[in-house]
Every structure is written in C-alpha cells, then in structure tokens.
C-alpha cells in the first residue's frame, strides 16, 4: 500500500534524471509501484531517421543540467497533483544519439489506465514546452542545425513558457 501524505493522499513516488547513459531499457521502475497500481505505462521517445524530409544521421542533445534536473522533477510533481497516479519516472538523455536510440523515457503507474495515459501525455508535452534542453541535428549531407532556432525556420522565442492554471484534473 502507498504511504500517505499529511492530507491523507497516497504519496506519489517520483524519480527523474538527466543522463548521458543509454535509455534503451525502460530503467528501474517496478520498485516504485506496488499492488495498488493496476496500470503501468512506459513511453519512449526515440531519435527519428528523418525530420521535415531530411535524412538525420544523429542528434546532439545539450542541457542546462542543474535547471533541467529541477524542471523535470517539477513537471513530474505537477503531474502527481493533477492525476491519480502512484508513481512517475522520467529520464532524458543528453549527448550524441543515433537514429533509433531512446532520448526520453517516461513511466507512470496508477490504479487505473486513464490516469496513466493522461499523466504520461502531460509529462512529455511539458518536457517539450519547458525542459531546458536543445538538440542539434546532423544530416546526411554533412550539414547540422539547432532544432527550433530562429535561423532554421522555427518559431522565435517570445516569452517564458506559459504556466497552466493549477487545476486538478481526473477527479470527481
């Protein structure tokens, strides 16, 4: 049974990391979950071999390490307050990756599947919106460019990522 916090809510177990080690295995997760979780969902994001029609030979991920660690944890803590989940794990890879390698892994355990899917989706979308990590694509023709940078045709930075209203979802 999960331990409970002061308000009597089950405490959500969270584990996060920014790593230059391989993420191709889902990673330790079973120890975060227990018999009260009837659903476990693992999402893996991988380097795709093409982007916008260009053949990608590899990706280099750069992170603002200290902030990325804090922000990834904050994202998971927000997910824990929004959805009825028992455990969340999220890891993001940095360094040089080849097509097919995992760049991000998110695991969610919850009593029911709906909260798993919602929490997992929330975590990946927030990672994409605000985790301070950048990627440089290398192409078959020898060219390389920072993804999303103004020169590469991406949207220019306008303001800090928007914070969503702190409203709990998935509860009656």
């Amino acid at each position, binding site marked *: 049974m999960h331990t409970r916090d002061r308000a009597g809510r089950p405490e959500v177990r969270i584990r996060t990391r920014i790593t230059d080690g391989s993420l191709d295995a889902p990673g330790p997760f079973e120890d975060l979950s227990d018999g009260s979780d009837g659903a476990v969902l693992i999402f893996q994001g991988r380097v795709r071999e093409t982007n916008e029609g260009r053949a990608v030979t590899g990706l280099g991920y750069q992170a603002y390490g200290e902030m990325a660690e804090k922000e990834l944890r904050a994202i998971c803590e927000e997910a824990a307050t929004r959805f009825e989940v028992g455990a969340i794990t999220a890891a993001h890879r940095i360094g040089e990756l080849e097509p097919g390698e995992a760049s991000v892994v998110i695991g969610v355990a919850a009593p029911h599947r709906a909260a798993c899917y919602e929490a997992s989706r929330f975590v990946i979308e927030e990672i994409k919106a605000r985790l*301070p*990590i950048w990627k*440089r694509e290398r192409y078959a023709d020898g060219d390389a460019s920072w993804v999303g*940078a103004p020169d590469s045709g991406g949207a220019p930075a306008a303001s800090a990522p928007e914070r969503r209203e702190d409203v709990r979802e998935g509860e009656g």
Partner: protein
Amino acid sequence: MTAAGGVAPVSGRIRVRTLFFGVYGEKAARREGTADLATGSTVGDLVATLRDVRGFDWLPERVVVAVNHRYAETGTPLSDGDEVALIPPVAGG
C-alpha cells in the same frame, strides 16, 4: 553573495554570470560570460546591454531567460552573483 567574476564590481554595480545555450552559444561564440550592470537592473536591462553594448543583436528583445534556474520575466530584478541563462527555443523530447 560573491560576484560571478573574480574581482568585485565597482560600488553601485552588480555582476551577473551569463550562460548561452544551444544556438545562442554558437552565435555568442561562448558558453558563459559575465556582465556588470547598475544596481537595481532587471532582466530586460541585461538583455538590452547584451544587444546594444556587446553587439549580440541576434538576441530577441523578449528572449526567454532563467535566473538562478527559474524562468524569469523581463521585469525580474537581478542581484549580484545571479546566474542568468539565455534560453533559445527548447527542443527536448
């Protein structure tokens, strides 16, 4: 708090450490530096200094900035020793 650079800034000034990530690091030809500003300066003042004094005119006027690991606004005040990161569009995942 100690100043970000070795020698303390002159009286009435603060010194912040600046970090440039992703494409900004490439354009600035550096990953980090320092900037001396008047006491009471804000994030917006720092960005204006980088654009106008340092010649980093490629920095958007409303560039995303983090102060001491937290996203900040243009009007966020800066203190001596702060770590200020200039954040290009993020691309995690």
